[in-house]
């Protein structure tokens, strides 16, 4: 009744036909104008994803991880949202300079998104076959009948049992895991180059979570897609990601390949996070807890936003915002892909 298998090793990033990364976010800023002031949700984020690669964006609620994704997808509520500066390059073209018409061609066809809560993301009064088929009708101008056939194919693809019989069912008739599969099917419909998954398994039970993550990894491999996985779960990240960007108060505080980050974090926040999660395979006495609370985005602390909670904080941390700088070995040797935004990254990584 079940498949017992070994989890696949980290696949090497595969290059696409074109040179350069699939998606590149450069110095992105997003702010929200509210009655109480300007909330700076994203403050200069840089990251890139290649085809076939999985980037995990890790952060707590309010760290700006979802807002960044919404900006990339072009579904940010504007107003109150505003993008004062930054570039989002998809295959080298800046999407922020495109017309709404051009963006719509990319959205869904080239970049698709999977949302956290499948029940509220699906339309409750339309059957799933219609909603899946909508992708083909709108983007490819297919007939209703052909679109339904395609919808059944997709449901088979994401391993929904008895797809033919269930294509006319409504979202509430499916279980949580099945609904999430429908969301994945919808994102996959037009075989996009990049999928953004915003907490795709947070609402699911562990056994179902494992099923859904496996399916996602399998399909990613098959289509050689780039994947941006937004999550707060360090366990899920360790299982699927190639590289990680840790966000705090709208900035990336650390960037690293997955193995490196867990072995030797170069930012006190990352270290704190890793130490504060209870482990299934370890039973310690007391958990390390990061003191204090995540900052209010309306009044982010001066200097490094993490300084009030940081055990290493010094005077410089309260006045100067640390830049995201490359991290090197003790002898100065390069550590490819590693960056940290901490004045004391040397002490943090090398102990």
């Amino acid at each position, binding site marked *: *009744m*079940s*498949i*017992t*298998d*070994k*989890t696949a*090793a*980290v696949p090497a990033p595969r290059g696409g036909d074109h040179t350069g990364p699939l998606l590149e976010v450069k110095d992105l800023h997003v702010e929200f104008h509210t009655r109480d002031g300007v909330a700076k949700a994203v403050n200069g984020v840089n990251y890139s994803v290649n085809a076939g690669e999985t980037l995990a964006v890790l952060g*707590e*609620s309010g760290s700006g991880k979802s807002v960044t994704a919404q900006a990339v997808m072009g579904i940010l509520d504007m107003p109150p949202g505003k993008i004062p500066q930054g570039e989002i390059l998809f295959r080298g073209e800046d999407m922020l300079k495109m017309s709404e018409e051009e963006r719509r061609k990319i959205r869904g066809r080239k970049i698709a998104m999977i949302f956290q809560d499948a029940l509220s993301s699906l339309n409750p009064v339309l059957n799933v076959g219609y909603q899946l088929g909508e992708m083909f009708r709108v983007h490819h101008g297919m007939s209703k009948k052909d679109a339904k056939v395609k919808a059944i194919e997709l449901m088979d693809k994401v391993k929904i*049992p008895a797809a033919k019989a269930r294509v006319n069912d409504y979202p509430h008739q499916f*279980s*949580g*895991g*099945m609904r999430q599969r429908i969301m994945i099917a919808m994102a996959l419909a037009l075989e996009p180059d990049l999928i953004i998954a915003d907490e795709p398994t947070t609402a699911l*039970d*562990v*056994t*179902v*979570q*494992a*099923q859904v993550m*496996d399916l996602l990894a399998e399909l990613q491999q098959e289509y050689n897609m780039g994947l941006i996985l937004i999550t*707060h*779960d*360090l*366990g*899920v*990240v*360790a*299982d699927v*990601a190639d590289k990680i960007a840790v966000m705090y108060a709208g900035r990336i505080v650390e960037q690293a390949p*997955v*193995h490196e980050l*867990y*072995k030797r974090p170069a930012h006190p926040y990352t270290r*704190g*996070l*890793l130490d*504060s*999660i*209870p*482990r*299934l*395979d*370890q*039973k*310690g006495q*007391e*958990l*390390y*807890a*990061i*003191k204090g*609370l*995540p900052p209010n985005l309306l009044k982010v602390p001066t200097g490094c936003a993490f300084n009030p909670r940081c055990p290493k904080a010094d005077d410089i941390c309260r006045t100067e915002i640390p830049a995201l700088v490359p991290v090197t070995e003790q002898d100065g040797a390069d550590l490819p892909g590693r960056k940290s935004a901490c004045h004391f990254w040397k002490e943090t990584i090398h102990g």
Partner: protein
Amino acid sequence: MADLSTNDEAVAAALDAPVGRGEPILQVRGLKKHFPLTQGILFKKQVGAVKAVDGVSFDLYQGETLGIVGESGCGKSTVAKLLMNLERATAGEVFYKGQDITKLSGRALKAVRRNIQMVFQDPYTSLNPRMTVGDIIGEPFDIHPEVAPKGDRRRKVQELLDVVGLNPEYINRYPHQFSGGQRQRIGIARGLALNPEIIICDEPVSALDVSVQAQVINLMEKLQDEFNLSYVFIAHDLSIVRHISDRVGVMYLGKMAEIGTDEQIYEHPTHPYTQALLSAVPVPDPEARAHRERIILTGDVPSPANPPSGCSFRTRCWKAQDKCATEVPVLAVPQRFQGEDTPAAHFSACHFAEEKQVVPAG
């Protein structure tokens, strides 16, 4: 009536007697809760029942933490409500110091509830937005005025705020002025107000951010030592349950599948469901993913309105045989481990229980 009230007083006296450390304080026997499914409007006809809890037995010892884990819909939260007598049990008993609380009502039940308190999952909906923090934490004193005399309450509430790590000056603030972690602390303070002996925590940290979770967990452990509390800790996060629990029970579809000490359950699980559950938990260690063996269950949890015959897990189990469809496995030490002095010899409800290590040794 006079007769009844003396009986109540006898009950109340029995409840005040202390329980020694390590002795059972709560004994649950064959607890069942079936919610009726009805058809028709005027003459409601019962057409079936959702067997949310279907025969659960366990003991809670004084001073320990019993973790209860399971997927959504397995009946964890219904068990919590039954222990508080917030739901009337269909069958079975819950003995608190020898008193069956499922049969109690009125004054005797009120006395029991003073000693068993609850902390809820969602700190955003479990606090009344129109009451100040002081009113919320002080409300239990309105119901049990014997605990704190009227003039003393404000000071008591401030003490409680201090105990859970909040500034006592926050007493006149409203819940919306606090963050999620702080709200959960308020919920805990309310639970502590009446000096209970048992606190039932229903997913107390699952709505919190990772960095705040650790703070609340540490607080709960500190309070347990300080006030000599016994916890029933219900959660779906297996890592957190392992961290906080002395003993763990695994539930599936209204039944207890396996129960034992945390070492027995996590390092020597014998029930296939426990093994699958544990192997599915993502371990925050990318080194482990290459050589970690995972059991991925197919399908979803069956409906508790129409559970499979025999063993309820058999529809998703890879070991299932004919016997599993006909015979309900009992929760006991499996025959093959009986009399042996191994950690595998603990209660497991499986016909084909065998040990399998699924959590990488760390």
